[in-house]
């Protein structure tokens, strides 16, 4: 019996949102008569932090302090449309929607302030809740006063703005070559995961000692939330790598974990050391250059742990989770000389056409025949 140490690397690429499905978010912002800002958005925060991020985006795009902004996502019946909280789309797609709405509100505030100050709105800007003339900050009026005047003196206007963000479908321009009319994805995030592990060749048990994670996230609107997404994703990825099998005998539902004692999610006791770094390589379309950092944070750990097992004991286990049973079976085969260690992993052919149809393109003409090779 011996313990073997190993190290493995996996890289990932993650397309932000579900760009090919007409995935849209709408939002509506109203500026109340006291200058405080109400954001109605369909994007529900399930703990991913989008509410906080949207608050910051609106505050920045409008030019008011963050604590003037309230984001209300309490009732999806009354809110504008949002496709849902999934596929790392909230900050990117929802964030763009609130940013566009905030920019419209800003434009209207500048117009009204321009009239009040008798200055061309193009020469005005807003910072920290104050509208002022560029180069002449002594000529100013607060956003609250503008909103108050709009409501009580200038005819009762409710200053508001709506915003929608959608990445339109790509259309085939040339059937022969498969050339399409726009990028199929709005932003691609990149990531890498390194696993340092120990394998017990008698029990087949794998213990992860450390993960080193690196992500290109475009721009971290709220770095603390990004950290939380990466740490949470890494531990979820640890579960997918070693513990969690929702259908152990897929497609048969037999022996499915029925509670947390049989479907094992990682606990604090399993926690490895997690080191990570973020690269900010801004995207063209994301709010303030942001990309996505939710789902991709749990994609790399399965393959990086599998690669580390190969590094440690020379076998490829090509099915997740990497349970002691699977590791031992692979070791047995290797000892019997039956299965030469695979160095090329497992090829998965991605069927673009099937994938596009599966996400429900409404236009039957949309066929994607682009061949990456």
């Amino acid at each position: 019996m011996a313990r073997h140490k190993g190290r493995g690397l996996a890289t990932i690429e993650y397309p932000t949102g579900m760009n090919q499905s007409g995935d849209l978010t709408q939002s509506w912002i109203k500026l109340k008569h006291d200058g405080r800002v109400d954001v109605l958005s369909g994007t529900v925060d399930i703990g991913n932090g989008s509410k906080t991020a949207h608050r910051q985006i609106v505050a920045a795009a409008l030019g008011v302090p963050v604590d003037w902004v309230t984001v209300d996502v309490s009732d999806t019946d009354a809110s504008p449309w949002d496709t849902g909280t999934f596929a790392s789309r909230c900050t990117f797609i929802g964030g763009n929607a609130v940013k566009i709405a905030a920019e419209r509100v800003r434009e209207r505030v500048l117009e009204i302030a321009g009239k009040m100050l008798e200055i061309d709105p193009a020469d005005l800007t807003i910072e920290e809740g104050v509208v002022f003339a560029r180069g002449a900050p002594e000529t100013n009026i607060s956003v609250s006063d503008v909103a108050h005047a709009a409501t009580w003196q200038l005819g009762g206007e409710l200053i508001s703005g709506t915003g929608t963000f959608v990445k339109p479908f790509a259309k085939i321009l040339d059937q022969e070559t498969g050339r399409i009319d726009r990028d199929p994805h709005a932003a691609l995030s990149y990531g890498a995961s390194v696993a340092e592990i120990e394998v017990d060749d008698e029990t087949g048990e794998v213990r992860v000692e450390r993960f080193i994670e690196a992500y290109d996230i475009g721009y971290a609107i709220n770095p603390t939330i990004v950290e939380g997404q990466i740490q949470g994703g890494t531990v979820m990825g640890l579960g997918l790598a070693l513990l969690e099998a929702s259908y152990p005998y897929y497609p048969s539902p037999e022996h499915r974990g029925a509670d947390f004692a049989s479907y094992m999610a990682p606990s604090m006791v399993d926690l490895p050391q997690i080191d990570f770094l973020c690269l900010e390589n801004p995207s063209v379309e994301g709010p303030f250059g942001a990309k996505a950092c939710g789902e991709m944070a749990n994609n790399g750990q399965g393959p990086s742990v599998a690669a580390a097992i190969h590094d440690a004991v020379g076998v490829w286990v090509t099915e997740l989770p990497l349970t002691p049973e699977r590791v031992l079976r692979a070791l047995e085969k290797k000892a019997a000389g039956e299965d030469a260690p695979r160095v090329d992993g497992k090829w998965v052919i991605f069927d673009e056409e099937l994938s596009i149809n599966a996400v429900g393109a409404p236009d039957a003409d949309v066929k994607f025949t682009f061949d990456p090779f």
Partner: protein
Amino acid sequence: MKITVNGAEHELASPPLTSLLNALRDELNVTGPKVGCQGGNCGTCTVLVDGEPRRSCLLPLAMVDGAEVTTIEGLGTPKRMHPMQAAFHFYYGSQCGFCAPGMITASVALLERNPNPTRKQIQNALGGHICRCTGYVKIIDAVEAVARGESFDGAELTRSRGGEATPKGASA
């Protein structure tokens, strides 16, 4: 059956085999403790019974007659948070928040028993509490901060990029 919940005494009408969790939530409308698994596996229903952390889903009322129960509501309010609640807030130890009622009550009990736990001891003490969101790191950070005596009185309870509240590119 009588129990005291967060300082208020209650005469309960629920039958004696009702779980404390259901009695708290359904009869007394104290919904801080969450219904996770109802089988003792997740920890989110944890409350303090006479100061000890207990899984309220596993406790029939008959076993807590006369007891003093403290739930997350009894520790503090949004305006006057318990230091552990403030630390979870400050260190971002909660994302969806579903595990927090159990994590926080259990952490308070841990520091009662052991005011200066090592990281390993915190991991072991909270090892039966499942969190799906945070990856646990910031939860441990929060508990350590309270143990160190960090104070959050009047602290600006949001951390953002270099103290700025808004992202760069703020003024167009």
